[in-house]
């Protein structure tokens, strides 16, 4: 009978079903977008920033003084290579310093890199927007970020002076020329990081053949913990960190966004709940006499209560899958084509380290909690109409 009642006022039932479907769709879409943003952020961190695992001198991360290297890196690399999960090892020298040009000065981090492995490790080549990168035959070249270039009014071929300490804490000054300008998805880093040749930097600071950081790429994201464990036992004197350790804000962001998405779901559902409540109340009021009549005939209050509940349940169950399906189709579509969010402001997105092209992911693992929220919403919003229905007195309802 509850089922038949749904068809009684088709428009009204349709409105409920469509709004539940829309609510579900909006919820799924928001979750998919967030999920996509998070996946993309994690990819950016791993593929372009930290890699899967990094190895440093234990004191380096606190004091980052030039002298804290990881020792003879060639031997180390030979040793590490035996771990099967590892696909790429990238050496870097890291020095904090000062950049000065006629325009002014800026604090920077100078990264000494081996061009080819760095290209693989942090997708540096793809980030280069102007210029050729570090060409082997030329000396004292530097790749700088677009933001820094704009701030310091630097162009390809511009001269810049870098100052930093060597291992003995003596100040070193060296002149470089801008050979390329890069742009990543992480604007704050673009203002700080300058890439130069590792051999040249090593000579300048007196650490040829050594490095401060080994960046490691793995075959699969899932291998991170296992590989890190192996490395830790292999290299007791060094600090082994996964991308989660290095970039805890990413991990934190993922969790915060999870919470946010539930809050958004709950807001959507609250709006829905009022819609359901209102519509069901109307449906009950319209049927005052009928409900009074079946109560007079001897229908127990429990049954009348269930009738109203069931009616709402049917509407929800008809609406929710449609919404989820629509959400799934849309998420899948944009998962393939990508969703260009540059309209939201490329500047803003990159300040938070996000790409503007997002590939939404259908939040399959969140489906159960989302459905639970929907079912609870429908249940709660039908409680009041159901109570109203059982409070109707048959004689009042039947009187003309």
């Amino acid at each position, binding site marked *: 009978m509850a089922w038949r009642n749904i068809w009684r006022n088709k428009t009204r039932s349709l409105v409920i079903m469509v709004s539940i479907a829309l609510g579900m769709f909006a919820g799924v879409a928001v979750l998919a977008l967030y999920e996509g943003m998070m996946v993309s952020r994690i990819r950016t961190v791993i593929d372009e920033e930290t890699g899967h695992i990094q190895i440093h001198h234990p004191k380096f991360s606190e004091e980052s003084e030039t002298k804290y290297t990881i020792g003879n890196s060639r031997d180390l690399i030979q040793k590490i290579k035996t771990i099967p999960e590892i696909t790429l090892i990238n050496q870097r020298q890291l020095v904090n310093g000062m950049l000065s040009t006629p325009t002014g000065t800026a604090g920077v981090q100078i990264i000494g890199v081996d061009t080819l492995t760095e290209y693989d490790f942090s997708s540096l080549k793809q980030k280069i927007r102007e210029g050729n990168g570090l060409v082997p035959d030329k000396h004292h070249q530097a790749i700088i970020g677009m933001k820094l270039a704009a701030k310091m009014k630097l162009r390809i071929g511009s001269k810049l002076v870098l100052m930093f300490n060597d291992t003995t804490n003596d100040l070193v000054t060296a002149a470089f020329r801008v050979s390329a300008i890069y742009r990543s998805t992480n604007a704050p880093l673009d203002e700080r990081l300058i890439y130069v040749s590792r051999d040249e930097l090593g000579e300048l600071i007196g650490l040829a053949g050594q490095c401060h950081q080994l960046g490691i790429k793995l075959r699969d994201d899932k291998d991170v913990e296992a590989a890190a464990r192996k490395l830790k036992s292999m290299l007791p004197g060094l600090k082994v960190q996964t991308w989660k350790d290095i970039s805890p804000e990413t991990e934190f962001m993922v969790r915060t966004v999870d919470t946010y998405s539930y809050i958004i779901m709950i807001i959507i559902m609250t709006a829905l709940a009022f819609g359901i409540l209102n519509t069901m109340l109307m449906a009950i009021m319209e049927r005052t*006499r009928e409900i009074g009549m079946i109560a007079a*005939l001897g229908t127990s209050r429990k049954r009348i209560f269930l009738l109203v509940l069931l009616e709402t349940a049917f509407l929800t169950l008809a609406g929710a899958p449609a919404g989820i399906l629509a959400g799934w189709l849309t998420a899948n579509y944009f998962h393939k084509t990508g969703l260009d969010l540059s309209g939201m402001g490329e500047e803003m997105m990159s300040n938070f380290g996000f790409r503007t092209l997002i590939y939404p992911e259908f939040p399959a693992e969140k489906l159960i909690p989302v459905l639970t929220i929907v079912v609870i919403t429908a249940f709660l919003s039908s409680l009041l109409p159901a109570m109203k229905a059982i409070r109707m007195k048959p004689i009042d309802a039947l009187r003309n």
Partner: protein
Amino acid sequence: MSDIVIDTHNISRVYNPTTIPIYAIRNVHLHIKRGEFTALVGPSGSGKTTLLNLIGGLDKPDEGQIFINGTDITTLSPGKLIDFRLHNIGFVFQSFNLIPVLTARENAEFIMLLQGKSKAERGTRMKQLFNQIDLEDKMDSRPGELSGGQQQRVAVARALASKPQFVLADEPTANLDSKSASNLLDIMDKLNREENITFLFSTHDQRVIDRARRVITLVDGQVATDTNVIDTSAPH
């Protein structure tokens, strides 16, 4: 005792007891025996509906007791009362009797479903009842597709489906044209004679009153006259 189905003991029902009290029913003593075919008449506002509601357990008297087949229904809890109505009393209301989304047959079955009767039992009973109300061909029609008279006949079938002690009908013919009204009365009359079903119905309509075999007149909530009509219209 056993053939007295309805027995009201000095019942009264007062509306608005705190402001201007209205005695809708005042000290009514009434005995209805099994198999009676009784009309409850009286001017508008005389308390007919109130009395039927009290007997039907839809309302409680402010004084007195009501015994249905020996059970004092004024002492039953609301839940028990609902169940008592379901198993003992058949109702036919003046209008909005049927649930529009169910077919005639489903409407008539409704009470049996609530009682948890088996499908087979319901099936045979429905066949029999729709035959008796002469609507076998309309079993699967929705109420909207039936005339007012046909709807009331379905309501009678529903009232009888559970084999109640008696059927209460508050102005069952009020919304019917005279042909449909007399047709409905024919069916009630037949069920009364052939199956010994007890009917108590209120009415304003003289032609309906003429069909009753006992007429109780209410005036200002009190029984004014109570007459057994000499049966002149017996068939055969």
